[in-house]
């Protein structure tokens, strides 16, 4: 097992688990329910708030939370690549077509192509929103232990859903190793030199075929082993997670009030409230 990830743009599940299980920061000691509720409120806030300055303030707070958890900031920047790419691919055309004042432009045939201030503002807002949530989400998942995830999943999801979610979490470790090993094998045999859509498509078809077949073989073995040990579809909960304490309740309440104010400001403010 190589036990390493093949991309710098997605967090390795082993690293997430390592930080969650071994971390000793203040954020690690915060009640997991509190962090989960705050994550929901952060998502709601960045969806409701439309002012760039306010969004930047929310983003700054999420980064502070991440730093407080003593998580790797340099890796976080690499993990930002995917959300930024998603936002840019979605709104790149809006930068040119959004009505507003021209910042820079050029003639393309008979048409004028120009970057507008509103277009850039739109992209900036979406990027800040995405990064704020990604930062807080990673900080949350890298500070909640597996046993706590099990309890929260079992309490919040239907049994079948929770079982599948938790099995997926456990299987991810072996599946990523499986894929990494296949990719290592292919690269060691100069597979990375394969050119052409047809040949590469066939090669990647082979990679995922092996991954699926191995995964199903393992799934069959695991299900037989689990059933032989009395597993009936209900995941065993080894640790109970108490509800948020007084401080957590206060933090969630304050954020809820802020969200309520933001909702009123957005939807009722223009009508004279």
């Amino acid at each position, binding site marked *: 097992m190589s036990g390493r990830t093949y991309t710098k743009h997605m967090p390795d599940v082993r690293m997430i688990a390592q930080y969650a299980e071994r971390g000793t920061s203040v954020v690690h000691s915060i009640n997991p329910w509190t962090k989960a509720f705050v994550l929901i409120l952060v998502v709601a806030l960045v969806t409701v708030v439309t002012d760039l300055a306010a969004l930047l303030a929310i983003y700054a707070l999420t980064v502070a939370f991440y730093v407080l958890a003593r998580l790797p900031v340099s890796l976080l920047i690499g993990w930002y690549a995917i959300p930024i790419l998603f936002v840019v691919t979605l709104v790149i055309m809006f930068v040119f077509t959004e009505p507003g004042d021209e910042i820079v432009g050029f003639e393309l045939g008979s048409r004028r192509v120009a970057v507008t201030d509103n277009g850039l503002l739109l992209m900036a807002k979406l990027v800040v929103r995405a990064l704020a949530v990604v930062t807080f989400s990673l900080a949350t998942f890298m500070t909640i232990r597996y046993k706590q995830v099990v309890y929260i999943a079992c309490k919040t999801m239907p049994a079948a859903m929770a079982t599948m979610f938790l099995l997926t979490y456990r299987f991810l470790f072996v599946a*990523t190793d499986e894929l990494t090993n296949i990719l290592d094998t292919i690269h060691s045999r100069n597979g990375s030199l394969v050119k052409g859509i047809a040949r590469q498509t066939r090669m*990647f*078809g082979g990679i995922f075929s092996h991954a699926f077949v191995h995964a199903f073989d393992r799934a069959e073995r695991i299900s037989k082993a689990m059933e032989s040990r009395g597993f009936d579809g209900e995941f065993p909960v080894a640790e109970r997670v108490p509800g948020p304490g007084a401080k957590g309740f206060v933090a969630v309440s304050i954020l809820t009030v802020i969200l309520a104010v933001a909702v009123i400001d957005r939807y009722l403010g223009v009508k004279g409230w």
Partner: protein
Amino acid sequence: MAHVHLEDGAISPIWVLLWWAVAAALIAFALYTLRHERTSVKRLTVGAMCATVGVAAFMVTIPFFGGLHLNLTPLIGILAGPAIGSLSVLVINLFSAAVGHGGWGVIGVNVVMNLVEVMIGYYAYRSLRVSLRAGRFTSGFSAATLALVASAIIVVIVIAVAGIQDSHLDEDETARNLVFIAAANVVAGVIEGFVTAYIVVFIGRVKPDLLEEVEIRRGEANMSVPAAAR
């Protein structure tokens, strides 16, 4: 990228809630169906493995057009069926949101898009194999390509109707801006169609029992060895 994952804040709160409601209803229906069928541990394990490979697939970048990744959602539909496949795509979206590969608030709309791919993947493959007796390669390619092309078009319609948050453009202008993404997704969908076809052919050779459920005719089920995914 082969697929549009919306990030948080891309659509307005009203649309976020609406799509969450639609996704919740569809997932509730899938759960109800599974409860009716009395879900076995094996089926849940197979669904979890499908979700796992779906999440792990994000690690692998195929070097076309600057790099694209595969969804594998039509394939998940073919292998796990629509009910378990629906739960798998929800789990994939939950894990994706946790690491920034799509937002939490927009899980609803992202799940609905993936469900479209799972459903079309399953039913198109089944129709081609069972009714038209088409080969596995043809069926796999056609089903996956159809599912992903349909999804690419629906994404544009969904975003055009909902509008990008804070944008001042109307539906037509928004749709025009998204044509490039749709075109890129259609090309990526065709590439994934070929990859899916190779995978289906490979699985059909080395582990054909995984395809029994989707390939077997109604009424023949009791005469055959139980499918691995059942």
